[in-house]
């Protein structure tokens, strides 16, 4: 598989994943751009790996969780607009505003917890694969997901 073929078929999926991780389309774009430049620089290694898809997902997730690793984070800091932690969408229809509270609260979670939630509830990955992506044990994945769910539950109860 060439890089072009990979990018052609996977770019949209990676962008969707990055939106779920960051909660902001612009930051998601920066994150994917940074990731794909790295992927291209190391394309031969990526193409030879067992699963290029999970390799690339891993690179992207690492960039997101490790603040100091990528220059995309500098761009985030330089960007004057939307703080990723603060939700923009305020719908005045009560019901939908309430529904979006979960989305808003995701921004306040530690990044690894948020990544674990996205990998399980959006990407639908089994816990073993989530552990591979995050580079930790399956038990750690489960405990951070249950901690994240507990945080969300508590905050939702307080908010409503």
């Amino acid at each position: 598989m060439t890089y072009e073929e990979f990018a052609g078929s996977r770019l949209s999926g990676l962008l969707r994943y990055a939106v779920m991780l960051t909660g902001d389309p612009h930051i998601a774009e920066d994150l994917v751009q940074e990731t794909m430049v790295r992927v291209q620089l190391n394309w031969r290694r990526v193409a030879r790996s067992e699963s290029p898809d999970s390799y690339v997902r891993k690179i992207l997730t690492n960039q997101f969780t490790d603040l100091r690793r990528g220059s995309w984070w500098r761009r985030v800091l330089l960007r004057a607009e939307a703080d990723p932690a603060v939700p923009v969408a305020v719908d005045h229809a009560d019901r939908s505003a309430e529904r979006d509270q979960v989305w808003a609260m995701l921004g306040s979670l530690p990044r690894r917890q948020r990544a674990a939630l996205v990998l399980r509830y959006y990407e639908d990955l089994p816990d073993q694969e989530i552990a591979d992506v995050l580079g930790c044990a399956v038990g750690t994945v489960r405990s951070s997901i249950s901690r994240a769910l507990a945080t969300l539950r508590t905050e939702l109860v307080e908010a409503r």
Partner: protein
Amino acid sequence: MTPIEEELRDAFARHEPDTPAAGPVHDKIQTAWVRAKRRRTLRRSASVAAAVVLATVSAPAALSHFRQSAAPVTAPAASSSPAVARPLDVLLVGEDDAGDADTVMLVHLPADRSHIYLVSVPRDTVGIRGVDGGRVPGAVSHLTGVSFDATVTVGFDDLRALAGAVGPVDVCLPAPANTNRFRTGRQFEAGCQKIGADDVAPLLRARYGLKEGLYDRDRNTQRFLRAVAAKMTADGTTTDPARLAPLLTMLRGDSEVWLQAAASLSKAEVVGISVPGGAALDSSRYLGEKFDAAVAPGLFAAIRGDTLAEWTAGHPDLLLD
């Protein structure tokens, strides 16, 4: 599925339409990639320049020493009589850890052996890009019209072993440099300091805090190389088999040509030349690198005609340091 889990799934699904369109992002990635690749080419060239300079300086002496001790019976006078002075062209291929050709450099030794010219060719030049390791020399000859007396292959890891064998050298830096953009990495202060095996890789990578980043860093690389070359020829490293053994591991391929190049090379001036070039694009698709058509043909003609002294005098801006 608990209620909170359901809410999460809903929230993700609801925000799927926020996803940016892939097309414009793809174009931005290609632009950023061309820039990143150019930076990498510079970086790699510096490492390989380091290796080839050391090989060029040390190998002739090293190999002649080993040859004499291994075969003392053969008449050395006949084989060591001065070779007919003619220019030599050596192709240097820098391999990455996977054994792929990562850096390509032409090394030209003029007939008078007064200089060592290093001419880097981007590995991704159209015509070389994607070519099998064994066919790289042919591809480079085809592009440049230069035919090679030998091909030398250098692994990146060899540099550290080489530096270990030589021992610490004094390098004087005009400005402080750091390996990390947040200045939290290895810090090199301005001024003269000892650079040992463990310092080499950080020094050759340190470009943060420098006024001209990579370019200043490459000048530091040259300062390091000069220091190494000076030390090796001055303290007799080149005649000590125990210290030379690690150096020999970096030379593969036809080594006879290094013997011909002779020990006088240790006094030659090292000149690095960058071939200007840019991205070859087919609409927005990146095909590889291409030479600057206004400059490259003249450079390659000067290599073939052994007139690089004149050529470099006319192109001071393309010379390293």
